[in-house]
């Protein structure tokens, strides 16, 4: 029990260090922490570390003894219309509508029975250029489904 607590603290410190190293680059890069579940009352901790290499997104889920590599991940953007900032910004006069940042990642994780479960997460980044951005969405695993919510550390 004591070891588990120490390990949890260690994992959090590692996660914080990773997130500090990447603040303003690709919106996915960094460490995300939150939970997922089938109902609001049944939640499970979820830590996701994502890294953009210039053309692909890779990452890990729940770093530690039960770490799982992300099988595939991507972020799709739908451009909005930029805010008017005058000539210095070189922008047009259209009203501001934000771009949409959608996220998709898949994970194969071993269940308690030893079988492999295939999780699919689909969500969106709510405040993509803020340091405390959040990712919310839904997940499916076979016939099970629910929601998730992550905040970048």
């Amino acid at each position, binding site marked *: 029990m004591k070891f588990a607590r120490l390990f949890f603290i260690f994992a959090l410190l590692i996660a914080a260090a990773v997130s500090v190293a990447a603040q303003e680059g*690709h*919106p996915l*890069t960094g460490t995300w922490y939150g939970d997922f579940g089938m109902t609001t009352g049944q939640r499970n901790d979820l830590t996701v570390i994502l890294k953009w290499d210039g053309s692909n997104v890779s990452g890990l889920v729940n770093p530690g003894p039960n770490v799982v590599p992300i099988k595939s991940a991507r972020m799709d953007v739908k451009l*909005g219309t930029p805010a008017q900032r005058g000539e210095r910004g*070189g*922008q047009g006069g259209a009203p501001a509508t*934000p771009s949409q940042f959608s996220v998709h990642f898949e994970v194969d994780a071993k269940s308690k029975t030893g079988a492999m479960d295939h999780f699919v997460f689909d969500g969106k980044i709510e405040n993509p250029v803020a*340091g405390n951005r959040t990712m919310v969405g839904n997940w499916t695993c076979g016939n099970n489904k629910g929601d998730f919510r992550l905040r970048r550390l």
Partner: protein
Amino acid sequence: MNYVFAVAVLAFALSTSAFAQQGQAQQGQQGQQPQQGRGQGGGGGRGQRGPAAPAAPTPRRPDGKPWIGSAAGQKPGRWNGGPTTLPQGILEKVPFQPWARAVYDQRQIDQFEPHTRCKASGVSRQFSTPYGTEFVDMEKDLKRIYILDMGGPNSYRIIYMDGREHPKDFTPTNYGHSVGHWEGDTLVVETVGLNEKFWMDTRGTPHTDKLKFTERFTRTDMNTLQYQATIDDPGTYTAPWTTGVFTMRWAANVDPFEYICQDNNHGPELMLGSQTEIDNTKFFVP
């Protein structure tokens, strides 16, 4: 007892506000100095009236190269008016990756710039710092040129002029690793090893830690420094691209001064959260 406590609190509050005002006054005085300097030598500073006198020629070192900053034996000065938007005038030609264009556009709406949180901001962002930027040319003695921030986090960048190469392996930093050389009268500086903790300009032109940033400084006369940059970042752009030419103006006879960014900061909401709410969930300033 309560009376004593109230007096103590009041005394503390008065001493704190007096200290803040002192700092503000000092900053105000310093902030006015560049305007005095701009009027000298006909640099064409903002607000100047009448025809500008021709500027003095480019000051030169004993070896014939231009002094990019203050000339030895003369009063120091600094450069004002650096680039605020690297894509200025060429935004639609910048080869953004889709995510990068979306981030750039979003940053025109949500301006959570690290510089406002007193973070050291490298490459071109260093030149749009309040109160200007000073070059300290120590190439003759130390084979280095220093670039000093004034109104930012009071830090500096080192440009190595001794012909060294970039390290093979390093931890990325806000200012990265800069090496420089001369191409005629133009100082060319290449910087790598940059982290992702700052914006390259005040408008949020994005980058990743794959960035190689090349700057060209040309002092065309006493009061004019031309600046152009090439951005090579395969993590953010589909091809390298080069900015237009920006012009910085010389402010003469001004000394660097102490500027503590955290003091009297008028944007505390930018340090702790969004522009609409305070976020105290982090134990460090993001």
